[in-house]
């Protein structure tokens, strides 16, 4: 049975870009572990030679004409939901 240590949860949280405080780590680890233990029941199923199902429609290579259409929404309207905007651009904190 797989169980994740608080340290592993910390690593997963970093990958997921979610800050988990040290105080919360044990509780979060417990909860994620209870889910992981639950889904571990899959391991008993023999899946030798079974293909995977990643989608159920069977659709393949859905194409449409590559036609340019005018966007009905103005730049200002598109930017209206951004938390911070400057000179018509989205502003972010420094990257490095």
């Amino acid at each position, binding site marked *: 049975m*797989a169980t*994740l240590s608080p340290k*592993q*949860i910390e690593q*997963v*949280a*970093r*990958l*997921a*870009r*979610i*800050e*988990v405080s040290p105080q919360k780590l044990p509780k*979060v680890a417990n*909860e*994620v572990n*209870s*889910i*992981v233990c*639950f*889904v*571990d*029941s*899959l*391991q008993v*199923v023999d*899946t030798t030679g*079974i*293909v*995977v*199902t*990643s*989608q*159920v*429609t069977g*659709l393949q290579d*859905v194409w*449409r004409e590559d036609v340019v259409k005018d966007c*009905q*929404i103005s730049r200002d*309207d*598109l930017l*209206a*939901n*951004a*938390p*911070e905007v400057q000179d018509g651009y*989205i502003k*972010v*904190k*420094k*990257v*490095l």
Partner: protein
Amino acid sequence: MADLAYLSIAQAHEALQSGKVTCVELTQYYLDRIKKHDESIGAVLTLCSDTALEAAQKVDEKIQAGKDMGLLEGIPYTAKDMFLTAGVRTTAASKILDAFIPPYSATVIDKLNSAGAILIAKVNQDEFAHGGSTENSAYQITHNPWNTEYVPGGSSGGSAAAVAADFGIFSLGTDTGGSIRQPAAYCGVTGLKPTYGLVSRYGVVAMASSFDCIGPITRSAEDATLVLNAIQGRDVMDSTTIESTENHQSSKDLKIGVVKELMNDSRYSEALKAINGLGKKNDVTLPDGDMALAVYYVLVSSEISSNLERYDGIRYGSRNDSATNLEQTYSLTRAEFLGPEVQRRILTGTYALSSGYYDAYYKKAMQVRTLITQEFAQIFADCDVIVTPTTLEPAFKIGSKSDPVEMYKTDILTVSANLAGVPAISIPAGIDEKTGLPLGLQIIAAQGNDAQVLAVAEAFQKTTEWHKKVEEIIQ
């Protein structure tokens, strides 16, 4: 003015066309009803009074000009807050979208708008549709209109409660593992999860893309058919959509697979009698529910961890302002504004997809998904539809399920339809004597046989009265 309580689409259409009621009066009836009862139900997140009354006014002008109207024209409805609505706040019940005003609408909202239906409110749900009780909403608890101590189910709990409380004639919900059918069962209404791909998801907040389906919650199968007809079909903006299928009429030699070990329950004995009259029964067994749930929670959490990457505080949505660099903007924003269940699922999915665990979880679950889909194909080789209870028990009390895995198990009979992409409906089929709460019956068919599911549900409702019981709960 005519009695407007619990109108069907056809009844409302007739009342409007014949001038028994104006569309403004009809719309106002629902707005008043929300005002009077929503304090105790808590279904509504955003009310659209002004735009609804304006649209109603236009419908009235058309009627006065003597023009014929489409069936959905002037029909007031509500939509789960997962559907983008241009100019109307859309939160997915998350604080991370607290102030989000979409610049465009979902295809289904546009289609209903073109058909003349009137959106009167955006309704509550579990945050990002992660849950089975609507208790995971970041805004409010929604109460079951049958008994306000109980949950309405989820994640489309606001939609089911709104339809049960007559806050509109129908509602739109989303169903990833049972989120239309389970709340429909808990609230004594009808909820349809169509075949995967039948209804466009463009402009609907994504949860798990290989499962998510959109469908109507109504008070009858007849109304569900009318709404589905208006929203289904190929959409160039959603490349997973399929062509709508031809009507599949219910025939006399209908073969009904009954899940005996679940239906041999005294609470469903009357429903079973009604089923006897619909066709020839044979016994079937559903794919293992625990296994289906395990597959579901691996794949859904994985898809969630990927789909929810977009909530990063950059292009839209809430942002934590104490960050000093970009990476902190992401991690502090997501920690502050995503709820606990959403974070749990993202972390579980990130783990399942991470290097070294992919084969053990994600790949394994996709293989077991194949086995479950094959089991359905075998069942449908011998029968046209399967009937089973929608849930093992009726609605539970608010606050009574604090363990996430316990909550997941309320979807044990509904998830397998999502794994296989097949259509399924929940209709009222009894009352639990102990609690006085409604019980749902689920009807499942093979992919593309949505009309078959609806026809059987409609035939059931022609000979039974359980779907009418909801009319007695709020006077």
